[in-house]
């Protein structure tokens, strides 16, 4: 489940001062938005070609690739469409396709 890795909970700026932390420190790992809107293209995985080498998993800058139910899957909330995974895959198991509008 992507949610297990990165919980994204929308946030609105507080109106009351007391609802801001009293200092510029806050619990780690809190995400309020993903980056799907950055994408011009998204990765399409052909599982039949995948050898499980994990090069795409290692090189993804955004931790958007993860193993789910025994296969690699893309978390589309996090993927920015950089294409590094497709470039790195020696078996061409990943193709970048344009985002539809």
């Amino acid at each position, binding site marked *: 489940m992507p949610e297990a890795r990165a919980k994204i909970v929308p946030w609105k700026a507080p109106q009351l001062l007391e609802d801001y932390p009293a200092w510029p420190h806050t*619990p780690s790992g809190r995400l309020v938005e993903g980056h799907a809107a950055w994408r011009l293209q998204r990765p399409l995985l052909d599982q039949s070609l995948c050898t499980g080498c994990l090069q795409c998993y290692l090189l993804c800058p955004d931790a958007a690739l993860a193993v789910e139910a025994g296969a690699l899957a893309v978390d589309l909330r996090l993927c920015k469409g950089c294409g590094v995974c497709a470039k790195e895959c020696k078996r061409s198991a990943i193709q970048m396709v344009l985002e539809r509008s």
Partner: protein
Amino acid sequence: MKTGLQFLAGNEAVAAGAALARPQVVAVYPITPQTTIVERLADWHANGELKCEFLHVESEHSALSAAMGASALGARTFTATSSQGLLYMCECLHYAAGGRFPIVMVNANRALALPWNIYGDQRDSLSQLESGWIQLYASDAQEALDLTLQAFRLAEDPRVATPVMLNVDGFALTHTYEPVQVPEPAQADAFLPAFKPAFHMDLDAPLSLGFSAGPRDNTAFKIHQHRGCLAAESVLEEVDAEFARHFGRSWGGALEPWRVDGAEAVVVTLGSLSGELRGVVDALRAEGLKAGSLRLRLLRPFPAEALRRALAGVRVAGVLEKNVSVGFEGTVCSQVRAALHPLGAAAPQVAGFTGGLGGRDIPAAELRAVFLRLLEHGGTHDNAVGWIDPGVRDA
């Protein structure tokens, strides 16, 4: 470390106070005239008395940066500096204050280059009033020791959560000897228990510290910070009252008035000069002249309301500092003027005086002359600096 009544230099008293506070991390870098503080701490550390992590940092910027790293994990931290070192860590001063790290740092007040000068004046700390640190000024060795202990309680109070800079006059206080009561460790522990941080990096509850806040959010954090600093004035009084309960000595919070009641002319000052000033006030009073003096122990937060109350009814206030804000007037003078302004027509007249730059002595006769000038001419109608005994004159 010897306890009880000791004959100590100001720096040794500060070192004793710092050691008694049981800092867990001490960042050490030498600079005249602070050096004997860190040397004394090094002695106690080397013979196993002071149990702490003793970091020989390679610059003052690193001293405060390391102190922040330690404080971020919830360790009680201490460091000391002066003059050029204070300026070298300037970026970190703002950083520590904005980050609300309860670090205590002693600054040995010293002149700033250029020209080079290692002797005492007050330009270094006064040039850093905007940094967000609480600023205290001690006038003798006993107070320096006591305020060092008080500073930790003040900084660590979650209502304050602001680093404290304790200023001691270079050479005049750091290197002169006085009888000082050094508390027993058990006494100090009872007054200052172990540090309970309001926030800290925690492996069970990870924290992201020192984040970026953009145009939408930045002001909220600065308001929080501003109020935390302001709260220090009343918390200092609480801490001082608590100190009195433990040690039988009280210092009295933000201001130290001397014969201000019924005074016509009051000289406002910082630090150890106040001792000399009290003698001059007493002599003038004996001649029937209504003189008084007022020492600002707390300069940040600025005790504006307390100052207005203390100087109510005084005809003229002279502000005497070992500093000038080049291109205008004395920094403390400006602040006193601003604090008195709301009194309107009832505000005392103000005149600013600068002396003692680069360690130049201010003899009692010069202090007496300041009072006579105030009593005769009142305040100034411009922001001209009254130079005390500059040692030169115009052609």
